[in-house]
């Protein structure tokens, strides 16, 4: 370690605390799970090298900013935003998730499943078609014969409920 760099135990702590959230964030920006994993590694490498420059109370923001900049750099380089072959929902598996990341994800999935089961059918079908079947709102509207505004509104209501369930889990 060079003078002023973060020690490895501190980096490990940061990784345990923020890696899952950072990975999801990077997946959202890059729409590619593998690239997200690479950028995540690069982010923590930077943290170990120059994380000491960030104050501990703003460390999370620092990590996200570094991650975002790294992601945009890669995205510009590879123009991954032009490649829409992979969707966000399917882009996770090939990444190397830590065991506790997986565990947390499974727990979160369980919470979401419970909430999904109690969604009204008209909302549930739209969630399914939009996220799992990867259909656009316009396609869903045409398929089920409901105005697009209604489709978006139902999706938003369902999203709020599901998001709340996930948020409650994160808070615990």
């Amino acid at each position, binding site marked *: 370690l060079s003078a002023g760099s973060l020690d490895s135990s501190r980096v490990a702590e940061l990784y345990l605390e923020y890696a*899952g*959230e*950072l990975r*999801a*964030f990077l*997946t*959202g*920006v890059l*729409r590619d*799970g593998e690239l997200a994993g690479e950028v995540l590694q690069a982010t923590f490498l930077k943290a170990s090298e120059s994380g000491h420059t960030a104050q501990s109370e703003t460390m*999370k*923001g620092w990590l*996200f*900013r570094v991650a*975002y*900049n790294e992601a*945009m750099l890669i995205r510009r380089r590879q123009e991954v935003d032009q490649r*829409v072959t*992979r*969707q*966000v*929902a*399917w*882009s*996770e*598996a*090939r990444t190397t998730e830590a065991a506790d990341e997986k565990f947390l*994800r*499974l727990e*979160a*999935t369980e*919470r*979401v*499943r419970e909430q*999904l089961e109690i969604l009204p059918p008209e909302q549930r079908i739209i*969630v*399914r078609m*939009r*996220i*799992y079947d990867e259909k*656009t*709102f316009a396609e869903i509207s045409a398929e089920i014969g409901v105005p697009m505004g209604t489709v978006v509104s139902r999706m*938003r209501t369902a*999203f*709020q409920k*599901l*998001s709340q369930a*996930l*948020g409650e889990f*994160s808070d615990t």
Partner: protein
Amino acid sequence: MASEISQQDDLDWLAFQYAAGELQGTERDAFELLLATDLLACEALAKAVQLCQAIAICEAELVADTFPVGSVMQPNLETADVQSRATAIRRESLAAIRQGFAQPDTSLSRETLAAKSTSGRRPVAWHVFALVGSAACLALMTNWMGTGQPNLSGRQTADLQAGLVSLWIDGAAIDGAGAEDTELTADSQLDRQSLVVAGNVEASNSVVLPHENVLADGTGHGAVVLKSNESVVNSVGLDSDDGDAVPGWMLAAVAERQREVGAMDEEVIQD
């Protein structure tokens, strides 16, 4: 307070739209600018992605439960990156069950099979049920063969074997209608023969379908049992018919059939 919640909801929704690719042009650029400076926006995006992934996993598991392996309605989960452990185990189990029902190759496409059947979406439990039922039928048949098989002379057996081999090869001789179906292969004609031998001619149109499809219409149960028994016999390494050898149970079935035909002929003569 209420406005804070509303703002957070708006941000969450915006993040979801970004993650889902619904934002275009200036909207997308504006949100990316927000990501560069606002930690809340970053957190909202992370949460939206985690939520989408969790929903996708739940839906994938639901699909694996709803559509049996091999159903043409089943999405191609092989290409899906996200598979929960539970789903993977379930799929492996289904594949193992399906191997137990291994069938000879047929030229019928899955689409054709689906068109012939309205039962593409059989629940998983039916596979297990069919397997258990088949095993029970095998046990019964084995028992019957051991105690009630007709005592045939060598000449009778030779005649039966010759007859069966010709039946086995030339399906059209028994069921001319089936031969007109250009989609049927030799293998599927064998299936029809199996039915005819078992005295279940009226169900012969359904026997060419895979088990999960045949089970649904209720007309091919005899055929299902018969074929399932073959599969079970093959899968457990018992006395299987490998090619030209005529299985004992078939000899017995045809002998029974001949006795019936003979009895019917005698009645006709007497009339």
